[in-house]
């Protein structure tokens, strides 16, 4: 018989008992849709992490102050104010470093005309937009001469613009009071959205770090230093070089702990990926168990079906069906059951993924190879669990089968 005829025959047999066929498929349907949803969420989570990491800036390293111990009390990380713009300058000369920006940030009130707003004012270097992969919307960015001149100029983020200049007019050229120091707006940043931890990145005002230190904080130290390596492969090497240079600069003696930390965002990304990977493996395991249970369900029903249809099998044999043909018929039925279940499972899974995307806004994605894998796996389940009942049918004695009750 042709493949078409065999599948047709199987469909025919399964359609004779639609509700039972559907219930038999249920295990596979649940298993496959679980696989699809799991993979979609896993891929989505990885995409999300990657987006966040690249959103922070390419090949980013962050130098943060370490903790210090004063009178036996240890501060937390960043407690020490040890990083200076000079540290930044020396780091900039490290081979493999593309750009460096000291960061001075403070939380303060900003005023423009009749509106005021509390926001994060960040002192940065001109390289900041490059490091953070952030583009300007309008105007120009802070220049090196602004930095050298400790200029009273600023660049506004979109959230600040909408709060200080709600009328929609361009804020460029206007004056903004930052802790009562007047700054002239020279540019606006494009919208960047939320950060990985839900922080509104557009709620910021950028000024030269020299201005921030001199005019606002009055300190000679900076909060952190952002470093961009030339390539992603360079990141670990650059990380070591920076650590060594800062050790020398900060005169860290052998055996004592550093008063700074060089953090590699790629490490954080990998940790996040490993976490989602482990979670995904766990869920995939659960899904696999569900598929196997589904397969056992198919085997069970096929065994019942063989028993119920013993007379039919006997009749088919007496009409000239070889045992191989009977085997194919029953095997095809279980494969059709499981593949159909797999396809329905994919559809339900995709609907579930779309629903999750709509409800949570996660960047989920269904990779095509996951769909192929799920359907192929369900077919394999059908073959594996369908073989025993099919073999049982094929090896029936035609006389006994014909006279079965």
């Amino acid at each position, binding site marked *: 018989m042709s493949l078409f005829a065999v599948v047709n025959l199987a469909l025919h047999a399964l359609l004779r008992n639609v509700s039972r066929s559907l219930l038999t498929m249920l295990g596979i349907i649940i298993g496959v849709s679980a696989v699809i949803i799991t993979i979609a969420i896993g891929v989505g989570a990885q995409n999300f992490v990657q987006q966040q990491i690249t959103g922070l800036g390419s090949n980013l390293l962050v130098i943060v102050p370490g903790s210090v111990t004063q009178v036996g009390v240890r501060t937390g990380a960043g407690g020490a104010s040890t990083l200076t713009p000079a540290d930044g300058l020396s780091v900039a000369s490290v081979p493999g470093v593309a750009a460096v920006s000291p960061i001075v940030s403070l939380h303060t009130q900003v005023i423009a005309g009749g509106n005021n707003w509390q926001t994060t004012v960040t002192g940065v270097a001109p390289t900041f937009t490059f490091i953070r992969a952030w583009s300007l919307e309008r105007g120009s960015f802070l220049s090196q001469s602004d930095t050298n001149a400790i200029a009273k100029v600023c660049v506004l983020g979109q959230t600040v613009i909408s709060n200080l200049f709600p009328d929609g007019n361009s804020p460029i050229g206007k004056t903004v009071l930052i802790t009562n120091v007047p700054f002239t707006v020279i540019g606006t940043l494009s919208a960047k959205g939320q950060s990985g931890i839900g922080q509104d990145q557009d709620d910021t005002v950028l000024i030269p770090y020299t201005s921030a230190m001199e005019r606002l904080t009055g300190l000679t130290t900076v909060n952190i230093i952002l470093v961009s390596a030339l390539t992603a492969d360079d990141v670990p090497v650059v990380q070591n070089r920076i650590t060594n240079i800062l050790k020398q600069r900060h005169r860290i003696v052998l055996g004592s702990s550093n008063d700074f930390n060089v953090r590699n965002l790629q490490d954080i990304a990998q940790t996040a990926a490993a976490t989602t990977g482990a979670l995904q493996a766990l869920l995939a395991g659960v899904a696999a168990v569900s598929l196997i249970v589904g397969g056992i369900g198919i085997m069970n029903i096929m065994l019942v079906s063989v028993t119920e249809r013993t007379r039919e099998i006997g009749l*088919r044999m007496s009409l000239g069906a070889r045992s191989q043909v009977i085997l194919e018929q029953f095997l095809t039925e279980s494969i059709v059951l499981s593949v159909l279940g797999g396809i329905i499972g994919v559809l339900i899974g995709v609907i579930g993924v779309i629903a999750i995307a709509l409800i949570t806004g996660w960047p989920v994605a269904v990779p095509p190879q996951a769909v192929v894998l799920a359907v192929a796996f369900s077919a394999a389940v059908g073959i594996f669990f369908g073989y025993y009942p099919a073999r049982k049918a094929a090896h029936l004695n035609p006389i006994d089968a014909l006279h079965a009750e």
Partner: protein
Amino acid sequence: MSDSVIVSVKNLTKIYETEGAPRVTALNGVSINISLGEFVAVMGPSGSGKSTFMNIVGLLDQATSGEYWLEGKNVSRLNADERADLRCQRLGFIFQAYNLLARTSAIENVELPMLYARVGAVERRRAAQAALEQMGVGDQAQKLPNQLSGGQQQRIAIARALVNSPSLVLADEPTGALDSKNSHDVMQRFRALNDERGLTVLLVTHDPSMALYAKRIVRFEDGQVISDAPTTGVSA
């Protein structure tokens, strides 16, 4: 052996040996020849061996010893696949309980033997329709078995038995589940097929009035043939 001999069995025995049960001799040295165009009725009480004989002739079972020649070919020791192919191509079966597939239309039931003979879909449909029409149930082609009377179902079963043009039709109590009117109708159809088309029929029946449609009656008892004679009168 003459070319016109379809079935030739020589000294056929069948012994059932089950552990813990006494040994049963179902057939004990049966020798019969059936020629082309014969209409043979096999009669005998339960346990006489007539069903075993039918199963062996129908290639559903194999004898313990003895020889079986079908159309001049020794088929005593064929494997399961070879027997299946011969059942498909050379034999037609009719059962007491019709044995139509449930929830499968009449025409699809008739197509079944051709499916196993690898006949193409178009030719299958055409031949099945022709066979149904020959049996006077052409207008019932799309009906399901449970929508049809016993007489109609058995006529569809006969169409199914004939559709691969077998050389021998084996009918096992074909009227056992039918009323008198339908029984006679079915037997008349067998007789007509035998008279007009020279179809060779081997019939098993309990009912002497049905056996009278045959041209030769073989009686079994205790696994042996006790009489083998032409029928004297035929009720038309």
